[in-house]
């Protein structure tokens, strides 16, 4: 949906139009679910966070000033709700001990290699802080500009670049499978 149409939808939500809210819910549910899951890596908190985000959209849509894209505003809410949900959880032991999934018998070598890479990459992303992981996902998976990422996470552009710098260095250490050279910069 073009941003202008999303803006019109958000304006209707601001006017307490429930049909528009339901349309926005259906439009954003999967995107928010995927983003919150990537950010938190905790399947059990995702649904609650998505619901909190939708409730916040309903409550705060009248205050949306239209200076950013609706998706930037909505992902910004999701980012902060997800971090709050993580902060409420008790700290857990790192899950870096598990090895790659076993290769199924008869599986083509290339497929097995891809699966192993996905496992290792997943674990490497899991070792980043949620703030660093969010920048990596927003840049590489969602293809967003650093200015837009700064709006979503609510920090200066230089902080976004610094988080990406540390994330890249960490991924280099953990991902020789990607053929990434080990020197940073």
């Amino acid at each position, binding site marked *: 949906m073009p941003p202008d149409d999303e803006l019109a939808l958000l304006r209707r939500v601001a006017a307490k139009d429930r049909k528009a*809210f*339901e349309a926005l*819910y259906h439009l954003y549910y999967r995107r928010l679910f995927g983003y919150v899951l*990537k950010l938190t890596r905790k399947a059990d908190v995702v649904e609650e966070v998505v619901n909190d985000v939708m409730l916040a959209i309903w409550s705060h849509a009248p205050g949306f000033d239209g200076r950013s894209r609706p998706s930037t505003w909505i992902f910004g809410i999701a980012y902060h709700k997800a971090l709050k949900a993580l902060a409420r959880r008790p700290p857990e032991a790192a899950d870096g001990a598990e090895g790659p999934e076993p290769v199924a018998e008869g599986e083509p070598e290339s497929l097995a290699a891809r699966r192993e890479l996905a496992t290792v990459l997943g674990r490497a992303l899991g070792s980043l802080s949620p703030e660093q992981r969010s920048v990596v*996902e927003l*840049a590489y*998976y969602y293809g967003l500009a650093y200015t837009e990422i700064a709006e979503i996470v609510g920090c200066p552009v230089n902080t976004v*670049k610094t988080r990406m*710098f540390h994330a890249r260095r960490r991924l280099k250490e953990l991902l020789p499978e990607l*053929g990434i050279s080990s020197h940073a910069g």
Partner: protein
Amino acid sequence: MRDREDHDERSHQRIWELLPWYVNGTLSGQDRERVEDHAAGCRRCQDEVEACRRTAAAVKGLGDVAPSPHPVQLQRVLARIDEAERQGRHERRERREEDAGVRFGAPLRALIAATPRPLRGALLAQVAIIVLLVGVLVWGELHSGARVTGSAPPASYQTLSAPAPAPGRTVALHVMFSPRTTEKEIRELLLAVRGEITAGPSPLGVYTVEVSAADSPVSVVLARLRSESMVTFAAPAAGGNPARGDR
């Protein structure tokens, strides 16, 4: 010489920081040109562009695991919105009442302050007597009015044949829907019986639905629910009538 090397290194670092966004194609034209000019003569940045491309491809390759929204999830959000709005209305009403109290109390406090201290006790006693008398008059009016005029009292009685619960009372029912039921169908059915999901689904898929017992007898609501093919189970939530709870 040393200054020149520091300057070059700082320029390199600034370009290096931009490379992920060079790779995802979101740099402005000016930034893109700076990166390309620098990378043309910098082997480290050329390698890093390739590293960023491989990382981006791998991150994208992980895909997105996101289910379609279940109707019940939307129902929950809508229920939370209803609850939040009820709460908001309640708080606004309370604020208005507090404001009214302040408005009423302010002149009285001013009057007390303006009264010489020895007479304040007498003033307060008079105010208390006036409030008491007004209360007695209003009470008497309310309780004698119906008898004098003979007008029908509010429907606070119950007939023997159809015992009606007190107005405003709600009854909790347990309801299960068939898996193919859409959110719209659930919403329309709940609207028809004036019900509201207040809890659920349980691990077995049971919802708690509250219906107003003032609108129609619970047995009628249950009969209506059970007549719908989408409803696989409907019964009072805890130990009530009718005894024939299951479908």
